[in-house]
């Protein structure tokens, strides 16, 4: 099959959704609902087909990545004088392919689902336009070959999310305010994250002189390429016998010809501390020794395939081992197995250069990076870069401390939540980290930070989810928690596990969101139905006005809230398809055996376990223990709150008439649910660990197919041991999950779910404290408020009361201090007036506004005051300019 041309299709992945959005924006109002919906769906499905084609190509070619450079964008951003040359290039490699499949696959289903969900909305076509645009930016993000394009996608996703979250701004009254406010919060928190990414990009550009991930023709994972082409293994990490081989390997590495055999020597150099050598010491020694002569790797017999590469001549031309078989008869890829054809390491992409720099000795002048007058070691720079990236990731992927926007972002229509929370926006951060795996590999210190942030986020969000009433808010915190799992996995260096969990999570979280959408839709319809039949309103919440809403439940009591789980119950019989599919999603998320979540979560836990016990750096051990401990607890929470939700929503008796008369959703909505439910069960089998009981080899299932597929994109994978199925650990996880479900069932089972609109945990005195804490979201918003606003408040009061500026008395006292203080007091007293709904981001906003109000008082309108300010500036400038010279003069 001629699949070579498939990657060339990749620009279409961007163009098609753009075209769809274009049509819907400009002619949407003239089209019928069905046509404009179909346009959106077609665009999504077409991109999905292209993704499948690209995937099939890569699958047949060992996932060898390539760079596609559309002709019209040969140069995109180019300024010769500073060596700035950023082309518009797409990167096609397994990592991209997986993301493409996830985004377009889940995205297509969400598009289809929206057709039913948005039915009747007057902004129907605009919604589809936004969805398409949203997908487009996400696809741009995952297909880019440089950080700047990635950033364009990154920002684009942010802007689109702003529009989509705020889509229902016109709901009227407080709800509309809430929606637009949530949108603003998302936008602004994300800007904080973007700041990190932007700084990281600047530093990367300054350090490497380029932003490209991999140059065209560059091999990302040299070791893997050598393996595939039977050129002998590069350096396999084997912890069990590593020490023994180390001695030989080290000498081999030391002799490595850096200038020519750069790639090999490099890989060895990095790991030479411990057990860098190859599994078969001789092979490496031989391969290495012969390398310089150019007749590579007579590693016959040692290699698993037992084939001889026998590539004579210059292997840099990549004509190796033609037709040699060894991989099931399919033609062996003509891959470059090293990057020696690049004249200098500076011609490589960012990651290739990283490997080069790190192969240099620490403290060598070449490794120093100059920032103005500051010279930093390369590794330090890398550390800073990764931390800046982490800030961006925390913003986009909702990690501590920037996760606060995500739960509020539920304000958008449910398909949007699904798209954002399952497949696209929030995964961008994890994707960015995986994309930067080469960076992360070299800075274990940064990875420790990442691991801690991820696992703490996972635990914290899981805990908060225990105490939420809003069906979507539970799922939102669940998303934060699962993102924490992924980030923690990245922190362990388990990139494949992270990506695997990302993919499976995308499927079942989309399922859950869409399911919840279906539920909400049903309940809403039920509500309308009840109204239509004249059964007065308010039956659903007849518990009196002073029920136990705390301050954080900002549901407006008078309006019926179709998302409040207290208004549901017993929907299993009313909405069977939704129920069963939801159950599948719940099991997958809880990690019950053989569901998708089981495999992916288990792999993260196994990696953590492995790192904890056998990590060869103290930092790795530490990370392993922390992650393992926290994630096990978080997994328990997950199972618990999911079952709580199922109980509250589907089991027991209906608690409102709306719930009692909720209809099943239309086929547009249920079909995607069924498809997703199917994949929630099956998608996990793509990455079954080796030696898994029953499944290993069962029905053609291979070990770690997913992992092997990704190997060419993620260099460290080749060097890592493939872990065996860890039965005790898996059993432990399963036991935790089951017991959590059992516990949950015993608490919420049957009709006990909600009595008197109070959570059983809230009723119980021993757990009341805990539950309140969870319900109040651990007071994060308040902490933000305190930390940022209060100190300012105190300071100004101090200034006001204690410091008496006499000479400013008649003017500044009255108009600056007093008026400022008064206006601040007013602002704080009536926060709602100014749109400050909760403290976090809007707290920051208020702070800015406050400061702003303060400073503007100086702008009195009197020319003479302006002249004074100007002269003040003159004197200041003069003194700043002259005083250093005075010092110099005094010194000399």
């Amino acid at each position, binding site marked *: 099959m001629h699949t070579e041309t498939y990657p060339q299709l990749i620009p279409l992945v961007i163009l098609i959704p753009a075209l769809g959005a274009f049509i819907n924006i400009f002619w949407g109002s003239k089209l019928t609902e069905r046509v404009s919906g179909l346009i959106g769906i077609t665009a999504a499905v077409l991109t999905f087909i292209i993704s499948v084609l690209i995937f099939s190509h890569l699958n047949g070619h060992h996932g060898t990545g390539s760079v596609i450079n559309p002709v019209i964008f040969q140069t995109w951003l180019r300024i010769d004088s500073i060596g700035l040359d950023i082309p518009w290039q797409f990167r096609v490699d397994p990592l991209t392919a997986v993301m493409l499949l996830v985004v377009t696959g889940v995205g297509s289903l969400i598009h289809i689902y929206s057709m039913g969900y948005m039915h009747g909305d007057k902004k129907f076509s605009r919604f589809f336009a936004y969805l398409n645009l949203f997908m487009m930016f996400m696809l741009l993000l995952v297909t880019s070959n440089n950080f700047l394009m990635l950033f364009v996608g990154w920002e684009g996703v942010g802007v689109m999310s702003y529009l989509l979250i705020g889509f229902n701004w016109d709901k009227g009254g407080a709800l509309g305010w809430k929606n637009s406010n949530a949108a603003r919060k998302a936008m602004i928190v994300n800007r904080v994250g973007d700041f990190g990414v932007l700084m990281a990009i600047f530093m990367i550009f300054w350090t490497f002189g380029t932003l490209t991930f991999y140059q065209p023709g560059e091999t990302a994972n040299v070791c893997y390429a050598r393996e595939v082409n039977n050129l002998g293994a590069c350096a396999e990490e084997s912890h069990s016998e590593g020490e023994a081989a180390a001695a030989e390997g080290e000498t081999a590495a030391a002799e490595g010809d850096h200038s020519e055999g750069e790639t090999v020597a490099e890989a060895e150099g990095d790991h030479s501390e411990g057990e860098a050598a190859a599994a078969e010491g001789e092979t490496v020694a031989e391969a290495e020794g012969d390398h310089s002569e150019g007749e590579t790797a007579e590693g016959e017999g040692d290699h698993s395939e037992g084939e001889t590469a026998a590539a004579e001549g210059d292997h840099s031309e990549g004509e190796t081992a033609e037709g040699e078989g060894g991989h099931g008869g399919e033609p062996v890829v003509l891959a470059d197995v090293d990057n020696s054809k690049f004249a200098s390491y500076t011609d490589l992409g960012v990651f290739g250069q990283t490997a080069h720099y790190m192969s240099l000795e620490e403290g060598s002048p070449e490794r120093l990076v100059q920032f103005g007058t500051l010279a930093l070691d390369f590794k330090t720079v890398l550390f800073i870069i990764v931390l800046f990236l982490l800030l961006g990731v925390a913003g986009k992927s909702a990690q501590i401390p920037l996760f606060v926007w995500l739960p509020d972002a539920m304000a958008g229509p449910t398909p949007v939540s699904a798209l954002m929370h399952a497949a696209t926006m929030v995964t961008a951060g994890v994707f960015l980290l995986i994309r930067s795996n080469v960076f992360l590999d070299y800075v274990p210190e940064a990875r420790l930070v990442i691991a801690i942030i991820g696992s703490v986020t996972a635990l914290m969000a899981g805990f908060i989810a225990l105490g939420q009433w809003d069906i979507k808010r539970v799922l939102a915190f669940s998303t934060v928690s699962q993102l924490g799992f992924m980030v923690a996995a990245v922190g362990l260096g388990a990139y494949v596990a992270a990506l695997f969990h990302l993919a499976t999570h995308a499927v079942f979280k989309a399922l859950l969101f869409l399911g919840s959408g279906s539920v909400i839709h049903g309940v809403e319809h039920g509500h309308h139905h009840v109204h239509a039949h004249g059964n007065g309103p308010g039956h659903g919440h007849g518990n009196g006005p002073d029920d136990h809403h705390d301050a954080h439940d900002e549901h407006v009591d008078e309006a019926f809230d179709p998302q409040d789980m207290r208004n549901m119950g017993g929907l299993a019989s009313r909405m069977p398809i939704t129920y069963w599919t939801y159950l599948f999603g719940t099991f997958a998320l809880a990690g019950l055996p053989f569901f998708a979540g089981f495999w992916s979560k288990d792999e993260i836990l196994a990696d953590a376990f492995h790192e904890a016990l056998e990590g060869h750096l103290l930092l790795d051990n530490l990370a392993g223990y922390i992650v393992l401990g926290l994630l096990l607890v978080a997994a328990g929470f997950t199972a618990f709150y999911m079952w709580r939700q199922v109980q509250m929503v589907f089991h027991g008796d209906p608690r409102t008439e709306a719930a009692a008369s909720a209809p099943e959703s239309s086929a547009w909505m249920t079909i995607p649910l069924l498809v997703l439910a199917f994949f929630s069960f099956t998608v996990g089998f793509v990455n079954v660990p080796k030696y898994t009981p029953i499944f290993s080899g069962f029905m053609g299932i291979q070990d770690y197919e997913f992992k092997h597929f990704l190997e060419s994109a993620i260099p460290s994978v080749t060097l890592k041991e493939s872990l065996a199925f860890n039965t005790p650990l898996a059993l432990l996880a399963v036991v935790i999950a089951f017991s959590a479900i059992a516990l949950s069932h015993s608490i919420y089972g049957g009709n006990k779910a909600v009595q008197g609109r109070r959570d059983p945990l809230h009723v119980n005195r021993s757990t009341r404290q805990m539950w309140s804490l969870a319900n109040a979201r651990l007071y994060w918003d308040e902490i933000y408020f305190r930390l940022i606003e209060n100190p300012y408040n105190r300071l100004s009061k101090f200034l006001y009361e204690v410091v008496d500026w006499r000479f400013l008395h008649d003017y500044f006292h009255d108009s600056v201090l007093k008026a400022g203080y008064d206006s601040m007091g007013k602002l704080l007293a009536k926060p709602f007036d100014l749109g400050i709904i909760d403290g976090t981001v809007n707290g920051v906003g208020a702070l800015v506004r406050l400061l702003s109000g303060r400073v*503007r*008082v100086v*702008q*009195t*309108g*009197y*020319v*003479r005051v302006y*002249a*004074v300010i100007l*002269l003040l500036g003159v004197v200041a400038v003069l003194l700043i300019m002259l005083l250093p010279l005075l010092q110099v003069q005094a010194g000399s």
Partner: protein
Amino acid sequence: MNVPVEAFVILSMVLFTLGAMGVMLRKNAILVFMSVELMLNAANLALVAFAKQWNDIGGHTFVFFVMTVAAAEVAIGLALIVAIFRHKQSINIDDLHQMEG
């Protein structure tokens, strides 16, 4: 001549400072302008002094341009004052603070 050029520069600095203070202290718009003129004049004195120091005629030329520009500025400024006076019957610049913040 026995007077050092530095003395003229210092004199110009004093006059410049006095002019700057005048801009801040006087409320009468015309007097504010006059203060600005004093500042320009001080700058001119400095220019001529430096020209003397460097034995270069460039400074004199600069003075010439400064004077011409000052004349143009005065014309515009006085016209503005007259226009404002017509509307407000006042040339107190403290009366002009409609816009602020």
